[in-house]
């Protein structure tokens, strides 16, 4: 079943199932965020968190909620959405669920770039991440190119370059002093420890700025799922479209990596989960964004719930994403696509 929306300047049709699933997911995000606000080494009761948010409560309570948990949660949601969007875009564009930026090395490139920027300049994380991801993308694509981008080549070469970049990051760590190295090592696994409002501002203003472009590109992206011949016979121009998508996807990946570290498997798992919930052959960008946000929120909250060991969130996204990857690989094998 599908519904039509017709306004003078906008006409859309959407499936009832997508709307239902989307509403449930948004509800889940809200409930999850409230839970995440309340839980932790200083728990809040069912109502006290709200009064603190509204300005009541002690200084300490306000500090815990407003300066620590809230920015951390908002950063987790924003970064997760960026990961999910970027993953779903690359997967749809390449028509291959393995072609997500964390699998094919783009995220490793972003974090390596960020690391170099920190070591060299002490800041400029976003710029470093962007340049790192961009250079990696150019390298991977040009090495994998052979009259187009054969999926196996892309994935294997991307994986290889990802490992090489991870090794390079480790090498860089060993060159820095012990304390920075410890912080950065945690960041390299992916963590939302000690995020502040600056991170919130960065990731959400980035998302907001990119939102119109994402809305616009969703239309051609949905057609790109057909074969190349069909896409261009429908009047779309493949190369500029691919270029635009790659640019946007890299921006999103860099944004996510520089606020949450290269959390593994979020970009990879969000799209397939969203498409499994609404299996209608569409890119499911919005769904992937919300699932990505949920995954990172869950992983970060879990990492806060094990206080004595303080595992970084990346450990938990890997725990969730690993099985998804195995499931996807099995499906791909069964269909003979690998």
């Amino acid at each position, binding site marked *: 079943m599908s519904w039509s929306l*017709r306004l003078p300047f906008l006409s859309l049709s959407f499936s009832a199932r997508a709307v239902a699933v989307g509403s449930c997911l948004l509800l889940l995000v809200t409930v999850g965020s409230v839970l995440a606000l309340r839980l932790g080494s200083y728990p809040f009761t069912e109502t006290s968190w709200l009064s603190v948010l509204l300005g009541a409560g002690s200084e300490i309570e306000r500090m815990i909620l407003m300066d620590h948990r809230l920015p951390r949660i908002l950063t987790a949601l924003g970064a997760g959405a960026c990961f999910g969007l970027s993953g779903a875009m690359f997967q749809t564009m390449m028509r291959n669920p393995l072609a997500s930026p964390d699998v094919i090395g783009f995220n490793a490139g972003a974090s390596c770039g960020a690391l170099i920027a920190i070591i060299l300049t002490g800041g400029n994380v976003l710029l470093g991440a962007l340049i790192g991801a961009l250079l990696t993308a150019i390298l991977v694509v040009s090495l994998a190119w052979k009259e187009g981008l054969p999926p196996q080549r892309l994935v294997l070469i991307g994986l290889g370059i990802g490992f090489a970049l991870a090794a390079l990051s480790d090498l860089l760590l060993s060159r820095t002093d012990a304390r920075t190295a410890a912080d950065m090592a945690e960041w390299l696994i992916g963590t939302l420890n000690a995020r502040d409002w600056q991170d919130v501002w960065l990731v959400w203003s980035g998302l907001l700025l990119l939102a119109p472009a994402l809305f616009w590109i969703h*239309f051609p992206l949905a057609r790109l799922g*057909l*074969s190349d*011949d*069909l896409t*261009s016979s429908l*009047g779309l121009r493949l190369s500029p479209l691919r270029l635009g998508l790659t640019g946007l996807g890299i921006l999103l990946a860099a944004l996510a990596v520089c606020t949450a570290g290269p959390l593994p498997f979020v970009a990879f798992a969000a799209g397939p989960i969203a498409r499994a919930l609404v299996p*209608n*052959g569409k890119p499911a960008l919005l769904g992937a964004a919300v699932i990505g946000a949920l995954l990172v929120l869950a992983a970060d909250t879990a990492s806060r719930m094990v206080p004595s060991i303080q595992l970084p969130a990346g450990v938990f996204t890997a725990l969730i994403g690993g099985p998804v990857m195995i499931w996807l690989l099995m499906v791909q094998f069964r269909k003979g696509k690998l």
Partner: protein
Amino acid sequence: MNAPARLHAKALSVAFAKTPILKDLTADIPDGKITVIVGPNACGKSTLLRSLARLQKPDSGEVLLDGKSIHKQANRSVAQRLAILPQSPSAPEGLTVQDLVTRGRTPHQSALRQWSHQDAEAVGRALELTGMAPYANRPLEALSGGQRQRAWIAMAMAQDTEILLLDEPTTYLDLPHQIELLSLIQSFNQQSNQTVAMVLHDINLAARFADHIIALRAGAIFTKGSPAEVVTRNNMEQVFDLRCQIISDPVHRTPHVIPE
């Protein structure tokens, strides 16, 4: 020949890895007629059709649409006038028939205008005409090969173009459905004067439904003309290496090939 046809191939040459596939091929696709391209496997039929639809860039020569090189025109404006259904199209998993047919509306749509009244109307009509309306909400992979083929045709019809190119539209169809589909295309062509060019393997069906036949052999036009002119004993032997007798179809009065 009087006024040149809207779609015209001029001295086309296409090569893959230095192997020439089309050799200096010049052809008109007559306006408002049904043209059928025939020829043995791998003689370049699909390559010709893809070149005509600007999906294949020629190494030399050009394709003219409305008097201008097709590669120099905006892709979207070409897509509003010319639709092509390639030989083995593919769609993402889970896509429903309705959504697939809606994809055909792309050149008339934009990000802000994704589902206008005209879109709904054209999609509904294409589903109706191809008999796919009852399956509109089924995902493509839950259809039989023949139903799937009709869904693809519906998509090309929904594009609502004056020129329609079809690469083997009757594969996967049983004989009654082949006839039904070709009759549908024929009635479309007669009612709305749509120009059709398609590749068919069945020479008897080609003879029955074509106004104009182009017979390809090894990347060049061996002969072209009306079915009566093209479907002759001599031509069949030369083009297909097929020894046969030609009789006149007692019902439709078109030439009919009886292989020996």
